């Protein structure tokens, strides 16, 4: 059952550049959607729009719909939005050290949301905070609840931030690169925790990441973004196993192979374009080996792959799977 459906979301900056351009996504209950893309591809921006918390001034949502349980949150007033934030959609961030208030105890930060959305008493909220810390795997939660963020390690801080989000019992958790700042072993633990929470609570998760390895381990479905536009969506197996878009293919080939490889890293040639200089046509065409004249002039629409019920890509040559697009370099 669809929990959140974003259609044709467009976000512009002050100059009128569409940093997010016509993006459509959906997340079901209990599903983990991986939102993949390079820095600046608009994935964080798109998710902030779902909470109507766009970072920076001058950014505006220009069009589209964000339907949460069928109701368009873009029509909500600020008061209604405050009831959505935390309660319906929770968010955790890349850098837990800076997203936790350094002078407030972990327990109070967890309790705040509980008190705000559930009207819990100080005491109830504290008990609940201890219980949540236990759930996210903090040892000795009854005494840790009174610690400050700097007394936690990096991985524990991320767990604490997850507990802060869970306190309001959201249906959807947006996890913005939650493991990027963590050690590899701790990364695994946090991803396990997210999957475990999905299984136990039926939580839907949007996992923003640039790491396909994380996606492969954790997600059910994948959406790939490039330069503000969606390139490809589909089930994890389809997208990773039979990518339709040259960019997705490039990302997959960029992953360092686990057998050590021959010492050469495969990369996608060139740089992603700056927002002010998005090329006409397909935004990926200057870096794409299979680009044609059509790619340079006509923007490709998302098309569902024949035979696959939800695997779609925005590429003129999606059907003709070619492998010439990638340039093998250093």
């Amino acid at each position, binding site marked *: 059952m669809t929990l959140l459906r974003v259609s044709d979301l467009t976000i512009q900056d002050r100059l009128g550049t569409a940093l997010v351009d016509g993006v459509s996504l959906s997340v079901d209950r209990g599903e983990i959607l991986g939102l993949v893309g390079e820095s600046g591809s608009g994935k964080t921006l798109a998710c902030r729009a779902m*909470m109507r918390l766009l970072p920076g001034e001058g950014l505006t949502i220009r069009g589209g719909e964000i339907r949460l349980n069928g109701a368009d949150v873009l029509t909500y007033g600020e008061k209604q939005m*405050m009831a959505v934030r935390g309660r319906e959609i*929770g968010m955790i*961030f890349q*850098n837990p050290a800076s997203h936790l208030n*350094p*002078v*407030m105890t972990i327990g109070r930060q967890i309790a*705040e949301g509980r008190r705000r959305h559930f009207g819990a008493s100080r005491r109830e909220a504290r008990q609940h905070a201890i219980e949540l810390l236990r759930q996210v795997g903090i040892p000795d939660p009854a005494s840790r609840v009174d610690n400050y963020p700097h007394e936690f390690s990096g991985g524990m801080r991320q767990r604490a931030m997850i507990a802060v989000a869970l306190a309001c019992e959201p249906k959807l958790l947006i996890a913005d690169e939650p493991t990027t700042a963590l050690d590899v072993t701790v990364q695994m633990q946090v991803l396990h925790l997210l999957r475990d929470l999905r299984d136990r609570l039926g939580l839907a998760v949007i996992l923003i990441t640039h790491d396909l390895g994380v996606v492969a381990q954790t997600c059910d479905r994948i959406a790939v973004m490039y330069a503000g536009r969606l390139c490809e969506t589909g089930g994890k197996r389809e997208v990773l196993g039979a990518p339709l878009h040259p960019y997705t293919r490039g990302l997959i080939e960029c992953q360092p192979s686990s057998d050590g490889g021959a010492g050469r890293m495969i990369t996608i040639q060139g740089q992603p374009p700056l927002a002010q200089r998005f090329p006409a046509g397909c935004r990926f065409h200057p870096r794409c080996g299979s680009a044609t004249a059509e790619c340079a002039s006509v923007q490709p629409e998302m098309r569902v792959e024949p035979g696959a019920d939800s695997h779609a890509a925005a590429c003129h040559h999606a059907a003709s799977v070619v492998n010439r697009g990638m340039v093998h370099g250093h």
Partner: protein
Amino acid sequence: MHRYRFVLWRPFQLLPVLFGISVLVFVMVRSIPGDPARILLGVRSTPQAIARIRAQYGLDEPLWLQYFYFVRNLLQGEMGKSIIYRVDTLKLIDSRIQPTIFLVLGSVLLAVLIAVPLATGAARYRGRLADHAIRLISTIGLGLPAFWLGIMVILLFSISLHWFPVSGYGSDWAERLHHLFLPCLTVALALSAVLTRNLRASLLMELQNDYVTAARARGLSENHIFWRHVMPNSLIPTINLLAVNIGWLIGGTVVIESVFAIPGLGQLLVKAIISRDYMVVQGVVLVFALATVAVNLLADLLTVALDPRVKL
């Protein structure tokens, strides 16, 4: 509680500071031209009479011996007899310290009561008319000298409006409060200008922080975020600025007590300097130094209480 342990050893660390100040004051006060005995006895005094007074107060001893006596007396809880008042300086200070304490405390309280709402308004309505007005007023406030502001305040509230007495210090509490209000206001206006600007900048910086975004993402109200998250973080640097300014303010009481004729330590100090009353000058300056040091210790305590990351 180990974070507060510095309170125990900090006073011992400050002993060298106080020693240095005592030496400095001792030497400086004796370097001012003029002889206390001559000033006490007047221009027509005989050399014999002057010599007798000098001997009576130990002023004919070598400087190092005088300092030795000074320290020895201090350790016995005495500061030496005032030449003018003929009582021990400590007793003199005891009788004059109350108005100064209330002047300083009242000024700081009033300054905080002015600065916190103004800085809050400016930060929350950043770039709007309220912000510009508050910044303009505080810039003007920074430029006004205390003695001039004091006189203007007297002219307005005392001479024209008759709301407050021109000068002096009352005999009961209500009267004292009434008398101290204008001097406190004068100091507070200048002090609040500094505090407002600092706190506003601090608030704006904290508002940019990630934890504010995270708090919004939890659905907390802007009011809650501002007072529970942003304000405590912003107060940490402002408290240290306040401590520095209180130190400066303690010296500033000299001017304010003179303008408003308040019988406090500042006024005592001015009179003592004019009459070269060495013991009193030394005593008062030492008390001022001690107070400044104590205020800074208090600020450190507050910082440690507000910021769990700080270890001293």
